[in-house]
């Protein structure tokens, strides 16, 4: 089982890096990247779990593998959505961060 140790640590460190980036990075694009790093860490952890559960002729437990495949697709969809939102925000307001929250009420006519 020692083979999974490097990846376990990498997964934990990726989660930490991703969280750190999501919190402190200001640019939207960097936040999206940090989210993907964070997701990568989570998926890698599933990989560790899958590898630890290898057996019965499977090189890794197929259930976590399937979960990661599903998760990767969902994460991609989320990334695409975030990118579109960021582009539209940039296009309309020229902003590249989400620093200030726009307090939004009913639009004044």
């Amino acid at each position, binding site marked *: 089982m020692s083979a999974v140790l490097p990846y376990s640590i990498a997964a934990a460190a990726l989660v930490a890096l991703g969280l750190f980036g999501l919190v402190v990075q200001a640019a939207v694009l960097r936040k999206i990247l940090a989210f993907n790093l964070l997701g990568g860490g989570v998926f890698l952890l599933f990989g560790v779990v899958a590898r630890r559960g290898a057996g019965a002729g499977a090189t890794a437990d197929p*259930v976590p593998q399937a979960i990661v495949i599903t998760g990767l697709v969902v994460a991609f969809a989320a990334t695409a959505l*975030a990118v579109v939102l960021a582009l539209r*925000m940039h296009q309309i307001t020229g902003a590249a961060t989400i620093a200030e*929250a726009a*307090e939004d009420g*009913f639009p004044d006519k």
Partner: protein
Amino acid sequence: MSGTTPGGWLLVLALALPVGGMLLAFALGGRTAERIALGVLGLGTVLAGMIAAEVYAAGAPLAYRLGGWAPPLGLRLQADGLAAAMLLTAALVLLAVALFGRAAQATPPGVQEARAPFTFWTFLLALAASLAAAFLGGDLFNLFVALEMLTFAALSLACLDGRPSQFRSELRYLFFALIGSVLYLLGTALLYGAHGTLDIALLAERAGADLPTLLAAALMTAGLLAKMALFPLHLWLPPAHAGAPPAASALLSGLVVKAAFVLLLRLWIWVLPPVPAGAGAPLLAGLGAAAILVGSLIALRQERLKLLVAYSTVAQIGYLFLMLPLVLAGDPEAAARAWLGGILQAASHAFAKAAMFLSAGLVAGALGHDRVAELGGAGRAMPMAVIAFGLAGLSLMGIPPSGGFTAKWLLLTAALGTGQWWWAAVILGGGLLTGGYVYRVLAGSLTAPPAAAPRPEPPAQGPERVALALALVSVALGLVPLASFGLVQIGRPILGGAP
């Protein structure tokens, strides 16, 4: 437990119907989407009613084993009292919002298909599908997919108006929700690694107070709290909910946050062992108390009506968390009360808040603004909308007879019964502050309009009636005999109690 019960097919229909409806609405487009949505949501209400009746009659949860595979390998759908009650609440609110949307979100004449109406109707179905998946799912990863569906649907509904200022607040919402999702997913990875299953019923048997389980619970809870916008994680909620069109706001505030709460209950009441859960619950309830007080206080000082209502949601979410330490206190009688109180709070808040957002939207639409200080004349121009707002407000305050009152009464007596009087103080203080902001709106709208103001255009009767009907349901929940709420107790694990 893992087998299919009689009536289990209802669960499949409750999920497959909105999923199929959404796909068809998306494919066929335009006005057809609206027609499909109305039909599917109507049928969905019937189904939800049948499920609730079936659960109540059987006195036991319904379950359906998908594809014939038994957990842990396979997945199952299940409806206990909690799921049945929330499903019915969601179905009714969705149907009401759909009826409201017939006027507000109609495809304009002369075009085949327009962006906002098409998005609204399709995502209305999407939301129904996501909520059904979130309430009926019995597997933590399946519930993750449901949460993601919910996030996408909610985000798109929040963006419906397409105003420039919205993209920034929606982006904040998306990022925070995504962090929440990822933390939740991380928790499921640990749970699978530790117990080899993600089925809730099996985890309830296998999970102990070991390190991976506890960290998983903390991660998943934090993720769900981010999605529920529990104070102090509420940064995204006010702008997102206030910036959406009224029909969307009603759904976001009334239903979407509740789905994450159901997951939280599954985690805390089913999966977590009582000892660590009992230790963590006061922390969550403390945040809930802070949410009630701070949220109400901020709502009291808002200048915009829709933001006021949104902050009211921040506060009302807090009440849900008060049930945790009460349910976990180990007193079976108080636990049953607190459980019912919490779920009743979720349901009555869903109706009341939907009514509030709809009526606030009508008022804002007719006046052309939503400044609280300048609501004069609203009461005269659209009495039904203002009455709906007032009735909903009474329910939120906890004035009898209303669902909110019964909910708070149950929580109150459970708090006193378990010797945790401080939660009682919070419940009552929150009611007072709630009264303050509801009063501000009502008093403002009942004053005479400024002389120079143009006479506001009275809204159509139909939408006003929908708002009023929702408010009345929220009030009427307080008149239903308590015994018939025995439904929500079905399937709840009875805890031995923390030492």
